[in-house]
């Protein structure tokens, strides 16, 4: 990129100081931290993906074993914060759980499609952020997959068709590094043949795996040497075994100890070197400048945009932004409308409820009122009854009283008195209710004491004491 500027090369007359630029840049990146995302694909479950991750990063990420009974492939991302010196790494390990476990692998869609979708989704998320009007790319947590470690079953023969198909689907989307897992189950000579077979199959099927970059002189040599060792045959182990006077990570068999970090035993060290210590930054860069750009290009073209001539570019993407903005505003409006509608409905509902309750209460009130009135009426009736009875009673009492006194007088006086008494009687009969209680009380007392000796009703009336309701002679009158 600098060729046409050659003629403008200037030499400096002294130390300026901009050679500190890479340090300035790096120190900013260190403050922000780095992300690195690894996808582990391989079948069957139990091939050693988790163990290898544990061994690579010298930690125990997981302790549980994965189940063998997944009905479909599930992508399970887990993020960890690692720190070494002053470098903070946000490491995300994505496991394709259940890959290859399905009985019907002919439905290969079931196997690799979720993986492809997951990778695309991460690209999509980044693209969405990039297209936003107000965006913050510099502190965006990058979830795009930087490398896919593809675990090959150590059959010793060749690649399975599932492997080929899957890798073919993934090679334009992610950097693939194929790995032969559980390499301690193959003998050295078999391994060599196996590697050659695998590479030739990949080439003949047009699968583009990740090549360690050889353009930078500093690392060209080691990278090209490593390229020749692909696929790496690895063994993973987090257990330590004493060999000589050192504790090393190894797998102990009755016939010997397979040392993970011994290069004559397996390629683990090569993998670690390439993946982490030499090419981690390149893997990230390739993901961003090649795989992501390809995705973006395809996606935008799919949406109907083309780079035709320089003038139309800003328009075409301006249109995208226009439509996006309209979409967004439309969405906003719609949501607003929805919410308003919901609110209105809720208000109506509540109103109706309240009205209902009001009505109910009113009814109850009316009902109670009626009952109350009914009761009142009844009580009023009873009172009237009682009053009438009392009046009648009093009237009769007075009548009886006068008659009694008359009859007493009549026995000792002239018959003329009878007429006068008759008058008095009639007068007495017509006397007002409300005869004083005290006299009726006297009468009642009298009635209780004196014996019942009236033989006829006329006498009884006059006598008054026989007006008692339960007198035997009353029955004739009912």
């Amino acid at each position: 990129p600098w060729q046409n500027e050659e003629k403008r090369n200037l030499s400096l007359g002294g130390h300026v100081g901009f050679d500190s630029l890479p340090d300035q840049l790096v120190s900013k990146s260190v403050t922000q931290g780095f992300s690195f995302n690894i996808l582990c694909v391989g079948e069957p479950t139990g091939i050693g993906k988790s163990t290898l991750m544990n061994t690579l990063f010298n930690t125990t990420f997981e302790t549980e074993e994965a189940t063998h009974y997944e009905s479909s492939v599930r992508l399970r991302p887990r993020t960890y914060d690692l720190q070494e010196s002053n470098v903070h790494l946000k490491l995300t390990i994505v496991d394709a759980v259940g890959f290859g476990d399905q009985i019907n692998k002919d439905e290969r869609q079931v196997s690799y499609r979720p993986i492809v979708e997951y990778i695309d989704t991460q690209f999509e998320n980044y693209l969405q952020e990039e297209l936003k009007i107000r965006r913050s790319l510099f502190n965006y947590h990058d979830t795009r997959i930087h490398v896919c470690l593809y675990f090959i079953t150590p059959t010793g023969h060749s690649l399975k068709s599932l492997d080929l198909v899957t890798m073919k689907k993934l090679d334009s989307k992610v950097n693939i590094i194929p790995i032969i897992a559980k390499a301690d189950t193959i003998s050295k000579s078999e391994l060599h043949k196996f590697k050659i077979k695998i590479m030739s199959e990949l080439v003949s099927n047009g699968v583009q795996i990740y090549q360690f970059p050889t353009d930078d002189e500093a690392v060209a040599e080691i990278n090209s040497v490593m390229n020749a060792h692909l696929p790496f045959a690895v063994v993973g182990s987090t257990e330590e075994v004493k060999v000589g006077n050192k504790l090393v990570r190894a797998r102990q068999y009755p016939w010997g100890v397979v040392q993970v970090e011994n290069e004559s035993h397996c390629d683990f060290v090569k993998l670690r070197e390439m993946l982490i210590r030499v090419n981690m930054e390149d893997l990230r860069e390739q993901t961003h400048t090649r795989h992501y750009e390809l995705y973006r290009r395809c996606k935008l073209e799919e949406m109907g945009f083309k780079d035709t001539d320089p003038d139309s570019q800003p328009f075409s993407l301006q249109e995208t932004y226009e439509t996006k903005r309209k979409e967004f505003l439309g969405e906003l409006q719609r949501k607003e409308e929805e919410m308003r509608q919901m609110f209105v409905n809720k208000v109506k509902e509540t109103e109706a409820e309240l009205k209902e309750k009001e009505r109910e209460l009113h009814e109850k009130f009316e009902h109670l009122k009626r009952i109350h009135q009914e009761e009142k009426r009844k009580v009023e009736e009873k009172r009237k009854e009682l009053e009438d009875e009392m009046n009648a009673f009093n009237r009769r009492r007075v009548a009886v009283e006068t008659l009694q006194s008359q009859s007493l007088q009549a026995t000792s006086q002239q018959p003329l008195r009878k007429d006068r008494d008759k008058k008095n009687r009639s007068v007495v009969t017509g006397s007002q209710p409300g005869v004083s209680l005290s006299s009726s009380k006297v009468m009642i007392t009298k009635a209780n004491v004196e014996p019942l000796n009236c033989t006829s009703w006329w006498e009884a009336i006059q006598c008054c004491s026989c007006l008692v309701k339960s007198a035997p002679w009353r029955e004739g009158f009912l």
Partner: protein
Amino acid sequence: AGSVESKTEAAMSELVPEPRQKPVVPMKPTGINASLLGYIGIDTIIEQMRKKTMKTGFDFNIMVVGQSGLGKSTLVNTLFKSQVSRKSSGWNREEKIPKTVEIKAIGHVIEEGGVKMKLTVIDTPGFGDQINNENCWEPIEKYINEQYEKFLKEEVNIARKKRIPDTRVHCCLYFISPTGHSLRPLDLEFMKHLSKVVNIIPVIAKADTMTLEEKIEFKQRVRKELEVNGIEFYPQKEFDEDLEDKTENDKIRQESMPFAVVGSDKEYQVNGKRVLGRKTPWGIIEVENLTHCEFALLRDFVIRTHLQDLKEVTHNIHYETYRAKRLNDNGGLPPMTVETEENHESNL
């Protein structure tokens, strides 16, 4: 395992031109939710990144604004220790006083310590030189926005370049005339408008015309005036990332800035050393001597510590503001006309 990794590391360090100091922090691996049991090599990413950036090189675009005769070109040449800016030493008969503000961008490739930098110096002859200087900041603002537009156009391409050429103005040195009194209305107008679109670093030119006391007083007054007028010069308070940044930047904002500078591209012998300076009957003013002027502070600030930050603020904040505004505007606006090669001169 140990042998392979130290061999590669040794090989790598050999090819790096100057030995880099590794970050001085003890290598105690600690994790937050994962505990590390041994060395993995994650910290090598720093080295990997550094190598990559050195390979791609850096762009830096610096603009100088101020009345003619304030020593702008000299200062820039002194900053970069080379003839990056052509001096307009007096008006020749062929050159007329520009009627309006012109924008002249000159690019050079310079290299130091294996680091390649494409430096573009943008000169603004004619600024503040007219009788009526109304709106003379407009062409400058237009130029700055054009660069943002150029970048945006590249960015929204469907098939876009791996590395978008960056012509955006990362830093604008505004030269204040050392009147000793206060800022002129033109200064305030310019800085008010432009501090919103670009990083402005105010600089007191020809500081050798002031005594130490005058200098201190003038600086205080200028700072006060800038504050009163709400002018946020670089480093802007709102972009301080953390407490460390804030304390460091506060010190610069409240004590050192605006830097009172003297520029020179001539060397003299002082105390057995060859230094850049200005020779006067009463002595030699040493440009890089901190007791004489603050040039060294400006140089360290702009180049040695904050260069990357200047670029990042331009990219993450000023450019994003422009982009958001541009995309929010109603569609259908014709693209801005972009000046292409006419104003780029070659340094022959």
